[in-house]
C-alpha cells in the first residue's frame, strides 16, 4: 500500500539528527568551512547518533536491521545540518555497506564488528574517484593485476576523505585482464600506498580529502571485496548514488527553508519580499523541486530494500541526477532570494551553493 509517512522509529531518528544538526552542527558549520575542518567533538556527536551500527545486523556486531530507506532519511537530515559533516559522519558506511552488500562471510566477520563497536568515529575510507574532466566508473585508470595468489594495484585516486587517518581504504580498481571493477580492502600502512596532498575544493571544505597514490600495492587474494566471486560493483554504485541523492536533498531543503524564512522577514518597498510574486514563485518552485527530488530518492531506496537482487542502476542514477540538479537549482535560488546578502559568507546559502555544485562530480563518496 502506497504511503509517504516514515515509521515512528524513523521519525525519532530524524528528530534526533535535526536537533543535533540545528544546534551544534549549524553553529560550527561556517567556521568549519573557513578552517577546513570540523572540531572532532562535533564529528564524534554525529557518530554517537549510532546510525551506522543501527543498520548493521546483530550477527555482525551491530544492533539493528539494514534499511536503505531509513538510511536515506538519516542522510537527508544529516546533510540538512551540513554536507561536509554528513559525509564525515557517514564515511565508515562507504566501507561497511559495500562489505555488507558484497563481502565474503570472512570479510563481514572481520570488518563489520570493528565498525559497529567503535566508540569514536572510526576512519574507514573509500577511494573511487580519479582526477580528470570526465570520470567513468567503468573505465578506471587504477589497475589491479592478478599475479598468482595476490594482486598488485597501481594508480592514483582523488577525493579520498580522511586518507591519512584511515585504518582501512576500500580502493576500486579495474582488473587488468577482464576490465571488471572490484573493490580492494587495503590496510593502513600498506607498502606503496601514499597520501600525497590535501585537496582544495570549491565546497565541502570541512571534509578533508586527499590524493592517494598506489604504486604496486601488493595485496592477498582475500583482500578483494567478495573474494573469488568478485565485487557486486553495480549494486554498490546503486547504493552510493542513492545516498548522494539523499545528501543533495538535505542541502536543497536547508537552502529552501533558509530562503523562505529570510524572505518573510526581509522588508523592501514596505512589505516582506515574500509577498512579491517574483520571490514567492521562486520559493514555490524550490519547494516543489525539494519534494520531487526527495520522492525520487525515496523511491530508489525503496526499490533497493524491496528488490535487493534486482538491477537498480536506472532508478538510482535518475535519483542522483535529479537531486543533484535540484540541489543546484534550489541553492542558487536561495542565494538569489537573499540578493547581495546571499553572496556574503555570513549567510550559509553561498556555502550551500558551493556544496551543491559538487554532486555531479561525486561518485562513491557516500553509501546507504
Amino acid at each position, binding site marked *: 500500500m502506497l504511503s509517504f509517512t516514515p515509521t515512528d522509529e524513523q521519525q525519532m531518528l530524524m528528530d534526533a539528527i535535526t536537533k543535533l544538526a540545528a544546534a551544534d552542527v549549524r553553529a560550527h558549520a561556517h567556521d568549519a568551512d573557513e578552517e577546513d575542518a570540523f572540531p572532532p567533538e562535533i564529528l564524534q556527536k554525529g557518530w554517537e547518533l549510532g546510525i551506522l551500527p543501527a543498520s548493521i545486523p546483530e550477527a555482525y556486531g551491530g544492533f539493528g536491521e539494514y534499511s536503505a530507506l531509513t538510511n536515506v532519511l538519516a542522510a537527508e537530515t544529516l546533510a540538512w545540518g551540513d554536507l561536509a559533516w554528513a559525509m564525515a559522519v557517514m564515511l565508515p558506511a562507504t566501507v561497511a555497506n559495500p562489505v555488507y552488500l558484497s563481502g565474503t562471510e570472512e570479510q563481514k566477520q572481520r570488518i563489520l564488528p570493528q565498525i559497529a563497536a567503535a566508540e569514536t568515529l572510526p576512519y574507514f575510507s573509500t577511494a573511487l574517484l580519479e582526477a580528470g574532466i570526465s570520470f567513468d*566508473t567503468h573505465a578506471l585508470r587504477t589497475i589491479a593485476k592478478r599475479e598468482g595468489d595476490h594482486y598488485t594495484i597501481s594508480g592514483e585516486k582523488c577525493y579520498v576523505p580522511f586518507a591519512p587517518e584511515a585504518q582501512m581504504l576500500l580502493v576500486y580498481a579495474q582488473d587488468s585482464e577482464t576490465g571488471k571493477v572490484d573493490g580492494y580492502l587495503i590496510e593502513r600502512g600498506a607498502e606503496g600506498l601514499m597520501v600525497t596532498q590535501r585537496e582544495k575544493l570549491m565546497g565541502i571544505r570541512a571534509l578533508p580529502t586527499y590524493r592517494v597514490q598506489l604504486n604496486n600495492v601488493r595485496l592477498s587474494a582475500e583482500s578483494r571485496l567478495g573474494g573469488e566471486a568478485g565485487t557486486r560493483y553495480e549494486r554498490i554504485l546503486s547504493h552510493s548514488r542513492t545516498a548522494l541523492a539523499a545528501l543533495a536533498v538535505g542541502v536543497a531543503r536547508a537552502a529552501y527553508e533558509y530562503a523562505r524564512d529570510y524572505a518573510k522577514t526581509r522588508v523592501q518597498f514596505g512589505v516582506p519580499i515574500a509577498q512579491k510574486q517574483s520571490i514567492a514563485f521562486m520559493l514555490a518552485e524550490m519547494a516543489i523541486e525539494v519534494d520531487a527530488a526527495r520522492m525520487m530518492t525515496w523511491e530508489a531506496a525503496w526499490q533497493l530494500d524491496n528488490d535487493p537482487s534486482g538491477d537498480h542502476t536506472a532508478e538510482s542514477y535518475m535519483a542522483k541526477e535529479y537531486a543533484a540538479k535540484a540541489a543546484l537549482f534550489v541553492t542558487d535560488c536561495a542565494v538569489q532570494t537573499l540578493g547581495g546578502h546571499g553572496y556574503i559568507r555570513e549567510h550559509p546559502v553561498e556555502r550551500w551553493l558551493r556544496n551543491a555544485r559538487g554532486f555531479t562530480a561525486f561518485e562513491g563518496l557516500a553509501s546507504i
Partner: protein
Amino acid sequence: MAISFKIPERLLQEREMLKGIAEGIMRPESRYLDEHEHERPHAFIKAMWYVLREEQAKALQRLTNGGEKPKREGAGIANLRLVLLAEQLSWGDVGQYLCMPAPLLAGSAIEAVGTPEQKLRFLKRFAEGEPKWGAMAMTEPGAGSDTSAIQTTATFDPETNEWILNGEKIFCTNGKLALEESDGIVVVWATVDRSAGRAGMKPFVVEAGTPGVKIGKVEIKHGIRASDTAAIVLDNARVPADHLLGSAEVVRREGTAGFKGAMATFDASRPMVAASAIGVGRAALEFLKEKLAENGIQIPYGAPYHSLSAVQRDVIEMEMQLKAAWLLTLRAASMLDHGLHNSLEASMAKVKAGKVVTQVTQKAVELLGTLGYSREWLVEKWMRDGKINDIYEGTGQINLLIVARRILNYTSRELQ
C-alpha cells in the same frame, strides 16, 4: 505506517485492463477524432459506460444501505485508483478520456457538498440506462482564475420555490454531452449576492432539458478535440429549490462553505489532471524511445556525462522529469486516501506535471524531426493535447500561487 511505493496488485491488474482499452479502442480512433472535432468516441464511451454504470450502482447501493462510506481498516485506494486510471487512459488518448461517461466534476461537487439525499437523487441516473455525463460550469468570460468574480446570478422565487439562474458560462468540459446529448447534469456556480464575493457563490444542479438553458458556442481547440468545451447560456433558467447543493450550512447566505466545497473538489481533481498529463507525456516518451531504438540509439543509465549525446541527455531528462511528476502525483492522491489534507501537494503535482508534459511532448516532436512534426504520427497531437493540463483545473501559475501561499502561510490578501 512506513514509506512504500507499492501499488496494490488488483490496481495493477485493472491498469492492464485499461491499457487494453487504450490500445485496442482509443489509439485506433485518435487521429480520426482529432481531425473530426466534435465527433464522439462511441466505442470508448460504450466500453466505459458498462463498467462505470455498474460501479455507480454499487456506490449508490452502499449509500442507500445507510452508510456514507463503508468502514474499513486503514487507508483507502479510491484516489490512487483514479490517478492510475487517468494516467493510463490519457496514455491512450486524453481527448477521449475526457469523454468518459460519468458524473465527473459534477460528481465531485455533489460528493463534496451534497446531502446524502441529493447524492442519491442526482447520481442515480449514472447507474442506469444510456450513457450520461456530468459537468461543472464555473468559468465565465470575465471570471477565469478569479472565480470569485462570477456574475451569473441565482434569484429565489418564493412563489414557485425555484431558483432563477441568469448568466453565461464558458469552457464547460462535456457541457454539451451533459445537457444536449444525454440526460446528464451540470453543476452551475452562481452568486446569490454579487456584493458578498465568495460567500455568495453557490452550486446549483441543472438537468438536461431545463427550460432557459442553451448550449452556446462549442469551442474549436488546439488539442483534446474529441472533448467538447461548451458555452452555456442561462436565460431565466428555473431549477427547484432543492437543486441548490448542500446542507443548511452551505445553503445559508453568509459563510463560504459552498465556495470552500468547490475548492475541496480540486484536492481530488488536480492529482487526476496531473496524472492525465503524465499519461500523455509517457505516451510521447515511449514512442520517442521506440523510434530512437529503431534508429540504433539506446539510452544508457549510469554512463559518464561526457559519453552521452545531446539526444540521450534529453531523453534521460524527460524520463526523470516525468517520474518526478508522477511520484508527486502518487503522493497527493495517496494522502487523500489516508485522510490527510493534500491541497499543497495536489497543487505541487499539478504545477510539476503541467510543466513536464508541455516540455516532454514539445521535445519529443523536436527529437523526431520532420516525422515528429508530421500528422502521420500522434506525437504532434500529444503535444497539443498535453498542453491543456497546464491550463485547466487552475493554470500552472494559479497553482504555483497556491503552493506559495501555503508554504509561506499567507492569505490570498497577503500574497496576491
